[in-house]
């Protein structure tokens, strides 16, 4: 009896860790693709041309205004409805729950990250842009060499928050059959009926991952901080917005 219980404990811990690894993968890939997409979106959102601003605004409004669950169902179930999709070259990708989750998560986080970058861009002091123009920088040079580097540093704490939100959002992968951390916990519970125990264990692992992200972002911020630029630790601002 004891040996059996221990065996179950060891086996289920191994399964939960495998689930956690999938969770980390989904989060990391979605952040990578989403952030890549976020830069052009943020530039479009801040463009001087209305025909560039409008589609970016619509994109951000749609993905921030609808639940991630709807988005993941639209990609996974919705697209499969069309024969053209099922017959297309993309089907090996769009037929896989794994890639559908990553696509939905990437599109979602791109909208939020674009707004974070935009916020950082708007926070760049006017004088620095004027100075760039006075030095004869072209518009693109000004954006690339002055505005974006400043914006990225400015946006880092908010970006850390977005990574945490994506980590938590990745739990929705379990709704399309993926065995991420939440998915593994759910299958273990279906088998053992130990609902509270396994969900609490999964929650603890999420909490650890969250704390790791907080640590990582803080370390990055300290590295990128300019000499003479104080790192604020006032609650409710900057760091306070990460887990206090």
């Amino acid at each position, binding site marked *: 009896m004891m040996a059996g219980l221990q065996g179950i404990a060891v086996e289920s811990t191994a399964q939960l860790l495998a689930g956690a690894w999938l969770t980390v993968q989904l989060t990391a890939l979605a952040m990578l693709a989403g952030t890549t997409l976020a830069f052009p979106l943020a530039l479009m959102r801040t463009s001087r041309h209305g025909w560039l601003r409008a589609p970016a605004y619509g994109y951000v409004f749609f993905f921030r205004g609808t639940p991630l669950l709807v988005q993941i169902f639209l990609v996974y179930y919705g697209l499969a409805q069309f024969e053209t999709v099922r017959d297309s070259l993309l089907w090996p990708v769009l037929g896989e729950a794994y890639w559908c989750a990553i696509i939905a998560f990437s599109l979602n986080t791109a909208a939020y990250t674009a707004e974070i970058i935009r916020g950082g861009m708007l926070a760049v002091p006017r004088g620095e842009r004027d100075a760039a123009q006075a030095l004869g920088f072209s518009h693109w040079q000004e954006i690339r060499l002055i505005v974006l580097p400043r914006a990225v540093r400015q946006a880092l704490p908010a970006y850390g928050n977005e990574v945490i939100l994506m980590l938590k959002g990745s739990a929705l992968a379990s709704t399309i059959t993926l065995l991420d951390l939440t998915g593994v916990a759910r299958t273990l519970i279906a088998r053992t009926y130990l609902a509270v125990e396994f969900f609490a264990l999964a929650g603890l692992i999420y*909490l650890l991952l969250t704390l790791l992200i907080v640590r990582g972002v803080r370390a990055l911020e300290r590295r990128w901080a300019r000499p003479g630029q104080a790192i604020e630790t006032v609650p409710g601002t900057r760091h306070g917005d990460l887990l206090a």
Partner: protein
Amino acid sequence: MNEPPALLLGFGAQLAAGTLVTAGLAGASLAGGLLLGIAGAAARMSHRRLLRTAARAYTTAVRGVPELLVVLIVYFGASAAIGRVAALFGVTGFFELNPFLAGVAALSLTFGAYAAEVLRGAFLAVPPGQTEAAYSLGLTPARAFCHVLLPQVWRTALPGLGNLFLVLLKDTSLVSVVGLDELMRKSALAVSYTQQPFPFYVAAAFIYLGMTAVSMAGIQVLERRAARGMEWSG
């Protein structure tokens, strides 16, 4: 060839009913979450160390765990707890918590954890001179709190709370996982009947979008009201 479809193939009324449940769930969770948020903020600023530690543990734990997991923990955890209590009285069997109540509890817990931080920040943002001035004018502590402190806290906290409500509105969809017949589950049921996922999930998306737009307009009205007389200060 196709007949002109009735509104959403006849599932329009179903989606409308789901939308009402979603709105009710969001409203009830907002009320519960605000209460928890106020209690959490008060505890975080308390003189008692124990209260501060407990509040900190609550906000850290809930904000570090997926909302979906919170919903599942509350639903299955509470069901198991009810079962164990019932077993003490000799009643056995599987007990199920009402999914609506479980959803309200889970979403209130989540909203409260974030709201506690927003409210605490707003309290700290009111200069101490405001309360001192109120006292020196002879206001009682209760009056100073209600008439001087609270309106300023409300004004500062409103944008943050508004954002949290928009998040809450979307998180209601997670309660579909434990079987509540809200918008998302009604859509999924329609999909299983019609085998047409795309139109129904698009319809659900646009209904959520509409609710978000209405909420944003409401928040803006509240913000403008809260900022009465403050326009000059930018």
